């Protein structure tokens, strides 16, 4: 019988078809499709959503799918240090994690398509086919990435996702800014992907396979190898654990790039040059999530290395705090959201690094919805403000555009982590995992986690503050410009997505209310169960991608060697909630007034530093323009002068030699006779001596 899994490839192919359609239209250069190609996109994403839902249901029925469907290239024999021939394949891995992610991606994609009708079509943009082609290809690649069953396939779609991001950021190519931002985004992420690619290659070279799950998947091989039950190649004379750590960190490079973690976060704020729906879809909800999703996808591998876990946690926590501080002082609404995005992904990383597989995934889920919501809300505000993004020109919009306001508020509360909105539950769990594991674990990892927890906790405060500063400045007080006074709410195609996402942002947190469970003992940690499955049975056994497996590895002494302290989660939750409220409250006090002052200016030099993002861009730009370009110029000079100089030198030397030699022929015949005689005499003498004639 044909089930959901037989149609699963269509989840990826549908958006791809819409891409091809849109490309065809774009090439034709005529307006063949209504709505400039939006409708095929909507239809396709809707189809993907339905199929994803079907898959989701099937998976929740306990079935999973982990099959190779296409062999890209396969070797015939084992060469080099490999013990079996390489096989590079495409395949689907449909387990709870990917099923959940499919749902998120296709849903947000659909909503963004709809929203685009309002944001792009109604605003009379040109080049819409190109836009929808980009969206379609992006959706396809992202879905492909989600269902990937091995690291190489994941990498491929990872790159394609990057391409789409490039194309869509640079959508308004006729201006100067977007192309530059697009270039920066691709370059910075490419830098990360460089390490990722080395990681992929290394995984193949080490294990001969890159499958995520099932028998002979590389996390399992690694686990076996560390326990000495299997042998794999290690390189550079490293022991398995050390080598696996290296590989893990290499792959992490790609994660840091895509998920805009420090120090490769600089591209994301610039990426806001792209259309707002794109920011919502790509740079908040999905593509940026690709990075952390990858960590979750191969969690079994990371769980083996305490070092890797510590790095993940610290990078995440530091980024969370770091980005939050920068978000405090931004003027443009999208900039605030951008930095909050970076910060939130920091939290997800923290959760994963802290051994909170569920927690991290949970925050990934909630964040996808509330951040998409916030961006779309911002989009609707921007429409109303005629593409002026400066919050100081807004104010008082809540009466002019109620739907936007309330949905946006819901999103903000979620972001700030105020109970009972989605963000609270997930962020709270992340911090909780960090704390208990930090306290429990004795090794250096423990300390690292505690430090990370501290940073994450402070970030909560800032998050509350900048979130509500944004809300206040945008919607409260008196309108500060005429555009703000005349602002009107856009049409249904904007409101509908907002409402849908608003509801989700409010409610999705309920899928995993761990504190409540601890209080009441009610078994309501659905997400936890969903990701854990049933121990030692079903997919949890066959695929080895279940929380149980990870938990086992995390706490095993050959793995990360974690231990959990015993703490009631609600206490921890209360603490972070208090901080969030304090931050939000202070923002309300400072900016809630009718005509708030730019208090942050009072910070003086600190404000400058924050406003300039700690001069991160400056030093990276300096690296590019101050170091690399001059270096290349110098190399060019060297190449022309020395390397080519030698080549030309050879010819000039021989020509000079020729011009000298021919001077012998001076035109006077007696000289010829003389030289002839001399030559003959020389030969005579020479050979007479050589031959000993006389």
């Amino acid at each position, binding site marked *: 019988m044909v089930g959901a899994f037989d149609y699963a490839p269509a989840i990826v192919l549908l958006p791809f078809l819409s891409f091809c359609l849109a490309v065809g239209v774009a090439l034709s250069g005529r307006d063949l499709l209504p709505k400039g190609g939006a409708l095929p996109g909507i239809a396709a994403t809707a189809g993907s959503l339905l199929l994803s839902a079907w898959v989701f249901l099937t998976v929740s029925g306990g079935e999973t799918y982990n099959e190779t469907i296409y062999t890209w290239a396969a070797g015939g024999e084992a060469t080099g240090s490999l013990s079996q021939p390489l096989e590079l394949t495409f395949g689907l891995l449909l387990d709870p994690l990917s099923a959940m992610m499919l749902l998120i991606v296709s849903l947000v994609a659909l909503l963004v398509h709809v929203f685009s009708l309002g944001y792009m079509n109604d605003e009379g943009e040109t080049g819409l086919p190109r836009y929808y082609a980009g969206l379609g290809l992006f959706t396809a690649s992202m879905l492909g990435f989600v269902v990937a069953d091995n690291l190489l396939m994941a990498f491929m779609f990872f790159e394609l996702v990057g391409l789409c991001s490039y194309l869509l950021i640079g959508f308004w190519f006729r201006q100067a800014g977007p192309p530059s931002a697009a270039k920066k985004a691709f370059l910075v992420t490419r830098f990360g992907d460089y390490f990722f690619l080395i990681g992929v290659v290394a995984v193949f070279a080490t294990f001969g396979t890159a499958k995520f799950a099932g028998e002979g998947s590389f996390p399992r091989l690694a686990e076996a190898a560390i326990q000495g039950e299997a042998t794999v190649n290690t390189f550079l004379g490293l022991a398995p654990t050390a080598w696996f750590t290296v590989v893990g960190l290499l792959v992490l490079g790609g994660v840091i790039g895509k998920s805009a973690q420090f120090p490769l976060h600089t591209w994301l704020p610039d990426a806001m040059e792209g259309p707002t729906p794109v920011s919502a879809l790509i740079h908040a909800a999905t593509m940026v999530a690709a990075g952390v999703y990858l960590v979750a996808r191969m969690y079994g591998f990371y769980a083996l290395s305490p070092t890797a876990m510590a790095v993940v946690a610290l990078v995440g926590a530091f980024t969370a705090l770091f980005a939050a501080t920068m978000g405090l002082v931004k003027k443009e609404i999208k900039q605030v959201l951008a930095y909050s995005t970076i910060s939130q992904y920091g939290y997800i990383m923290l959760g994963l690094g802290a051994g909170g597989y569920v927690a991290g995934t949970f925050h990934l889920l909630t964040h996808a919805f509330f951040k998409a919501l916030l961006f779309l809300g911002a989009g609707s505000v921007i429409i109303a403000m005629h593409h002026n993004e400066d919050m100081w020109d807004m104010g008082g919009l809540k009466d002019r555009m109620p739907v936007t306001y309330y949905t946006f508020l819901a999103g903000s509360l979620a972001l700030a982590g105020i109970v009972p909105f989605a963000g609270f539950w997930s962020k709270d769990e992340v911090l909780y995992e960090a704390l208990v594991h930090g306290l429990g674990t004795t090794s250096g990892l423990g300390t690292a986690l505690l430090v990370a927890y501290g940073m994450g906790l402070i970030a909560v405060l800032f998050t509350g503050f900048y979130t509500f500063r944004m809300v206040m400045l945008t919607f409260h007080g008196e309108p500060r410009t005429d555009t703000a006074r005349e602002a009107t709410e856009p049409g249904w195609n904007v409101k509908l997505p907002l409402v849908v996402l608003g509801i989700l942002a409010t409610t999705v947190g309920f899928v995993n209310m761990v504190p409540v469970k601890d209080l009441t003992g009610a078994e309501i940690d659905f997400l936890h169960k969903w990701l854990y499955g049933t121990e030692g049975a079903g997919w949890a056994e066959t695929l080895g991608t279940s929380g149980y497996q990870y938990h086992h590895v995390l706490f095993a002494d050959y793995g990360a060697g974690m231990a959990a302290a015993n703490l009631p989660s609600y206490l921890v939750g209360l603490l972070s909630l208090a901080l969030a409220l304090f931050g939000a409250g202070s923002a309300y006090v400072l900016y809630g007034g009718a005509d708030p002052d730019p208090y942050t200016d009072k910070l003086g030099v600190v404000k400058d530093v924050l406003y300039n993002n700690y001069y991160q861009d400056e030093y990276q730009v300096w690296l590019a323009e101050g170091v690399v370009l001059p270096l290349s110029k110098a190399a060019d000079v060297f190449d022309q002068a020395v390397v080519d100089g030698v080549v030309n030198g050879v010819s000039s030397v021989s020509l000079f030699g020729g011009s000298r030699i*021919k*001077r012998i*022929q*001076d035109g006077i*015949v*007696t000289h010829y*006779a*003389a030289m002839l005689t001399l030559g003959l005499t020389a030969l005579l003498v020479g050979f007479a001596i050589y031959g000993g004639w006389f």
Partner: protein
Amino acid sequence: MVPVEYYLVLSAAVFSIGLYGLLTRENALLFLMSVELMLNAANINFVAFSLQWGNLTGQVMSLFVMGLAAAEVAVGIGIILVLYRNFKDVDVTVPQSMRW
């Protein structure tokens, strides 16, 4: 009877004299005469060694050489005339329009 080596020395001397003249004289006709000397140096050898070896080859050869020397002079004079026609001179060092 005169040892044959003496003839060799003689012919070598004549040859060298001719060579010397050829290298030092700039008048084309003197050049020709020097060449004649050198040819005759060869003739000395031929004749002398013809006697030495007791066969006539050498003597015959010397006749050939003389004949050809004459022919050579004929051609040479012709060329020298052409030279004079074009350069108004029989100095062999004058024509040097072509060099290098």
